[in-house]
Structure formats: C-alpha cells, structure tokens
C-alpha cells in the first residue's frame, strides 16, 4: 500500500514536471530559454507515455503473453533466430533504426522556430511512431518474424503486398539521394571535410581486412583500430587543409562530389560486404552511440540557451530553407524522430527473430523509438542554440538570399535575424572552413551547433576539430545508410526481376548484380544530380519528397496493423493505429496537394516548371541558366509525377484496408489471420532475466 502511494505520488510529480516543462517551452515568448527545459519536457513525456500508454497497449490491446514461446525460441537455429538478452536486442534495434534522419529533419524544421518541431517530435513519437514500431514488432513476432511486405500480402491481400514492396524501393531511392545531397553539401569546397570523409573509405577497408584475415571475428579490436584511425583522419584533414597543393585535390564544388558519391555507391554495392559495408557499419554504430551520449552529457552539463524564437514568420510558407506553410510541412520535414515508416522494416523481419519473450516488445519497440525521438530533440536543441541569423546564413541556399555574403546577411538581417559578414567569417575561421554560407542540408549547421556545445564543454580551442568530427560522424553513417540501402534496393530489384527471368533473381550471379546495382544507383544518382544542380539547393525539392515517402511507408505499416486489429475482433481498440494513420493520410495528402497545386514556385512542382518555361520562352534567363533550364523543367515534372504516384499508392492501400475491415465486419470472407499457433515457452526457467 505504501509503495503504491509512493509510486502514484512519483508519477504525479513526473506528470506535473512534464506539464510545467512543456508549458514553459510552449508559452515562452521573446525570452531565451534554457535547453534543459527541452530535455526535461521530453523525458517526462516519454516516461509517462511508456509507463501508462505503452503498458495499456501491451496488456489490454495486444494482450502480450509472457508464457507464449517466441519465434526465436521455437525456430532457434543459432543464426538469425536466436533468443537474446533484451538489452542486447534493444541495442541492435536502436542502432538499426537510428540513422541521420532524426538529426537532419529537426534542423531543417527549425526554420519555423523551435516550438512546432519540438511538439511534433514529442506528440508524434508517443502517439504515432512508438506505437507503430511496437505493434509492428508485436505482429511480426506473432508471425514468425515475417517482413512488413509479407504481412501486408498475407493480411490485406496482393494489393497491399505490392504497394508495400514498391513503396519500400522508392523510399529507399529518395532517401539515398537526399542523404547523398546532405553529404555533398557538407563537403562542398571544404578540403578538410572532403579528405576526412574520403579517408573513411580506406579506413573501413583496413578494418574489414583486419576482421576477416588478420584477426578473424575480433570485432572490438578491429573497431577500436578503426575509431583511432578515424580520429587521426579528422586531425589529418586539418593538417591537409594547410597544404597549398594537397588541399586542391580535395577542393571541389558540388557536382564532381556528387559524381564521386555515385561512383562510390556503385562500388560499395558490388564489392563484397566484408570489404566496406560491414566494417563501416561497426564504426558508424560506435560513432553514433558515442556521439549521441556525448551530446546528451554536454547539453545537460552546459545547459546552453536556445536563441531561436518559439515561432518565426516563416510559418506562412516563405521560409528560406524549404518553401511551405507550417501545416503540413513541419510534419513532413520531421519524419524520423516523430514517426518513420522505415522502422517498420526493422521491427518486422530482423528484431522479432531475436526476442526471447513477448514482454520485451514494449521496451524494444516503444522504448527504442522514444530514444530515437530523444535524439531528434537533441538535434533540435543543437540547431536552435545557434544565433538565428547564423542558422539562416548557414542553411539558406544562394538562390534565395544571394551569392554574395553582403547580400545574404542584408537579406537575413532584414527578416529580423541580425547577422554580419564579420560574424560569419569569424565563425567559418573558427570552424576551419573558408565559408559557411549556403551550406543547406542540415549537417553543417548541426555540426556548428554541436561544435559550439562541445567546444564550451570541452575547450574552445578545439572548435574546428569538433566541427569536422561532427561532419565526419554524420558522413560516416550517411554513407553506411547509402551502402546498405543500395544493397537492399538491389536485392529487392533482383527479387522483382527474377519474376521476369529467374536467372536475374540469383543474388550471386554477377551480371545480375551489376545490372541491378547499376539501376538502383542510377535511380538515386539521378535524384542526387537533380538536387545538386537545383538553384534553390535541392533540399527544398528532395527533403519533402523523402518525408512524404517515409510517412507513406508508415501509413502502410499502420494500415497492416489496423487491419489485423479489426480482423482480430479488436475494433474498439483499432484507434491506437487508426488515429495516427488518419493523421498521416491527412498530412501526406495535403502536402502532395500543395506540391502539385501551389502557385508558389518554391512549393509547387508545376508552378516551378511553368515559371521556368515561361522565362525560357521569353528569353529572360542568362545563358548558363538557359542551358540547364530544360533539365530543371523536366525534373520538376518528374518530381510531380512521383508525388502523384506516392499519393495514389497511399490511398490505394488505405481503401484496400478499409475494404477488408468492412468485409470482416459484414461477416464476409477475408484473408485469415496468419498468426502462428500458441506454444508455451520453455525458456522461462532457464532464462536469466536481468
């Protein structure tokens, strides 16, 4: 009884603290605010949601059964099906779901001010993203670890299955293109960044060789060697930057760097995994975990002040980083960190095969996503502790604010965010860069933010080191996603092509490997090229497309989950997934509608294409712009088609799910539930819980 009262009082205190923190950051106007409030608000919201909402879903809706044997136990094979300690599974799951997305999205969305993004990250995660990850993990666990695509086919029928497959392939292509663009913008005309990122390739190969041939399977030794080499590469880049001849080797504008990324991507896809992909993945995982922990400690220790206002005037759609109003674009810009469809691919297929007990599902599915959401909150803090003028100077593309530094600062200052040329030169000098203007994409401003937080915590003299460390850290796991994504895309394509000619479906037949890798790389390479040549910085086009495709994948996962809930007779609880699904359908449809019909050339694809065509016809374009104009017009139309295709796929699967639910409720035949039969676990006695 006493313990119960104490627990109740503790939770009331957490709720009050959380409410005060959220209220504080939401109602604050005009005054600077301590970043610790963001951390407090986030932790309280996650704690309450995890303790009450997730627990309720687990016990009342999903009816999690700790006595039921999981696929890892029933199908144990010592390889992929393997009952594993839940903290280990949590580590694997988190490392797999947390990529560069939650770092980039919030940074871009900070143009609306800190508030909209922060609220969406918190609410979207606890009501949407965490629920999606948790229920997908649960349903896949009950189905022997089947993938999202297989579950869609089994539970909804062939339409759902095909839509899931096509959506996954397309989102992969757009994702890789936009991430490639982020890396290119970070390396543009920066010998230090470019040489450091380039050095990660031979370093990964050395580690790969070490773990395969010199000391087989010694993962920790190899990783330690790699991390030391990476840190040396960051320092070495600083040395190289001061060598007049050598630095020119790595000093390139965007387009050649984009080609380098494309060639690299192709090489990575056809080389054996041990050489590049596997060792790079180890390194990026340690870098990621280490940097996230370091950032959290530095924020708590330094308690930096958030200088961005709660809301900026750009909620009207005139923002320099990307065009579009607060609704729906804040919800599209921040996908990962609030709700990310991509996670459903990890939560089905990979993670369920490791679960030792169903009761770990809440911690791994819900808790894993809550932690990722926390990373997004930290990215939001790192972006908003910068002076807003500096933030906009780094992130506004030259096409919006002007190529010359004086023009750019005048324009940004006129928006009410004062910044000077001297301030920017000093900052660039401190960070060891020639310039920080127009580095759209999120990575450089995040790196400046992280460098200033780390710098004030661990010594100002190291700012340039910290900046390039942060760039290297982002680049290394962007490139991991790029390698892994290209490879997955290749497998999926080979799978599809195998239906046409079985030989093409053999993943080890080299001509098929070359062909399918070539197609996948060409597809994302083309979108990367579109982004790099775009005068408005490319992020304006590609990031919303990525957000839309990621949210549509989430909608597919939620459709599968809602369909299963209704078919299992849990109609009255179906809102837990139907509500986020309705919201996603609304925001993605609204975003696609805006992207198609808006008259604003920075929002509407057709508006941009028509505007450029009119200018071209009138001969008002300078010759170098006139030369690329036809390509730009074609690209805008292609993007529009893609957006239409995404929307059609979304509605197709939503209507298909509703049809299945309606048929079930009318007692008409539907595809039966594909749940594996109940079997009692034998693990519990032997299994050491910790």
């Amino acid at each position, binding site marked *: 009884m006493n313990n119960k009262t104490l627990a109740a009082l503790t939770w009331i205190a957490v709720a009050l603290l959380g409410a005060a923190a959220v209220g504080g950051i939401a109602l604050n106007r005009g005054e600077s605010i301590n970043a610790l409030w963001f951390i407090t608000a986030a932790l309280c919201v996650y704690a309450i949601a995890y303790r009450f909402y997730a627990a309720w879903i687990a016990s009342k809706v999903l009816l999690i059964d700790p006595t039921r044997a999981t696929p890892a136990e029933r199908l144990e094979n010592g390889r992929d099906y393997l009952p594993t*300690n839940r903290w280990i599974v949590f580590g694997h799951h988190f490392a797999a779901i947390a990529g560069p997305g939650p770092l980039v999205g919030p940074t871009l969305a900070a143009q609306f001010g800190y508030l909209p993004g922060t609220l969406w990250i918190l609410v979207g995660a606890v009501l949407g993203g965490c629920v999606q990850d948790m229920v997908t993990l649960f349903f896949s666990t009950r189905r022997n670890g089947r*993938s999202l695509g297989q579950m869609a086919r089994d539970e909804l029928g062939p339409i759902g299955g095909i839509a899931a497959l096509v959506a996954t392939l397309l989102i992969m292509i757009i994702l890789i293109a936009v991430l490639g663009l982020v890396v290119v913008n970070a390396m543009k005309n920066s010998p230090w960044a470019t040489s450091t990122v380039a050095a990660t390739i031979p370093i990964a190969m050395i580690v790969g060789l070490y773990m395969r041939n010199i000391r087989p399977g010694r993962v920790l030794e190899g990783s330690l060697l790699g991390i030391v080499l990476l840190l040396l590469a960051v320092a070495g880049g600083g040395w190289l930057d001061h060598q007049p001849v050598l630095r020119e080797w790595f000093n390139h504008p965007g387009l050649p760097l984009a080609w380098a990324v494309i060639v690299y991507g192709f090489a990575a896809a056809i080389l054996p995994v041990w050489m590049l992909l596997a060792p790079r993945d180890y390194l990026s995982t340690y870098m990621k975990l280490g940097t996230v922990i370091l950032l959290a400690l530095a924020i708590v220790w330094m308690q930096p002040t958030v200088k961005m206002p709660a809301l900026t005037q750009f909620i009207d759609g005139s923002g320099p980083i990307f065009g579009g109003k607060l609704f729906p674009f804040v919800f599209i810009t921040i996908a990962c960190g609030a709700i990310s469809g*991509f996670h459903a*691919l990890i939560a089905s297929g990979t993670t369920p095969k490791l679960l030792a007990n169903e009761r770990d599902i809440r911690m791994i599915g819900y808790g894993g996503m809550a932690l990722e959401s926390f990373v997004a909150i930290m990215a939001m803090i790192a972006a908003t502790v910068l002076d807003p003028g500096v933030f906009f100077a780094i992130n506004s593309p030259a096409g919006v604010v002007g190529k010359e530094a004086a023009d750019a600062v005048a324009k940004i200052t006129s928006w009410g965010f004062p910044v000077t040329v001297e301030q920017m030169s000093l900052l660039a000098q401190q960070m060891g860069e020639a310039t920080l203007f127009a580095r759209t994409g999120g990575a450089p401003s995040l790196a400046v933010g992280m460098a200033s937080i780390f710098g004030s915590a661990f010594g100002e003299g190291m700012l340039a080191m910290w900046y390039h460390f942060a760039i290297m850290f982002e680049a290394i796991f962007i490139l991991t996603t790029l390698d*892994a994504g290209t490879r997955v895309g290749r*497998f999926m394509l080979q799978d599809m092509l195998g239906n046409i000619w079985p030989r093409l479906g053999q993943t080890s037949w080299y001509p098929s490997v070359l062909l399918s890798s070539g197609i996948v790389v060409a597809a994302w390479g083309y979108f990367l090229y579109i982004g790099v040549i775009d005068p408005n910085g490319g992020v304006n086009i590609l990031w919303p497309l990525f957000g839309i495709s990621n949210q549509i994948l989430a909608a597919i996962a939620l459709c599968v989950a809602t369909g299963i809930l209704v078919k299992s007779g849990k109609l009255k609880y179906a809102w837990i997934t139907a509500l986020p699904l309705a919201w996603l359908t609304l925001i993605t449809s609204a975003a696609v509608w805006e992207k198609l019909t808006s008259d604003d050339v920075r929002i509407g694809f057709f508006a941009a294409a028509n505007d450029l065509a009119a200018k071209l016809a009138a001969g008002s374009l300078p010759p170098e712009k006139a030369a690329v104009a036809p390509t730009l017009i074609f690209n805008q139309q292609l993007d529009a088609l893609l957006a239409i295709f995404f929307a059609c796929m979304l509605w197709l699967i939503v209507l298909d799910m509703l049809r299945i639910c309606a048929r079930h409720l009318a007692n008409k035949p539907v595809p039966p539930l594909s749940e594996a039969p109940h079997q009692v676990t034998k693990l519990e006695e032997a299994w050491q819980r910790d």
Partner: protein
Amino acid sequence: MATGLKTWLRGCWRFVRELSGDDGYERYLAHHAACHIDSVALTRREYFRRREGEKWEGVRRCC
C-alpha cells in the same frame, strides 16, 4: 565493494562483447555443442565469413 565493482565491470564487458558480436564465435560453439554435436564445427574464420554474409541479406539500416 571491490568485488561488486569487479562483477559490474565484468558484466559491462560481457554486454559490450555480446552487443558488438565480438563473442559470436564462442556463442556459436556453445550452440553447436548443444544442438549439432554430430557435425564438425566451423573454424573461427569460416564462422565469421558466414555470419557477415548472412547479416547483410535484409534491411539492416534505416534513415
């Protein structure tokens, strides 16, 4: 106190090894001894090659 700390540190080390897959071969040998006693176990090198190949067959990394 000292032994408590020692146990804790040892636990941490085991956790890091398992999380990274550093102890994968030892786990494989244990599994092999328990379930496939009639066949010859892979060598450390063979085991690691096989595992790396399998690990990258599916979706492993997100955005």
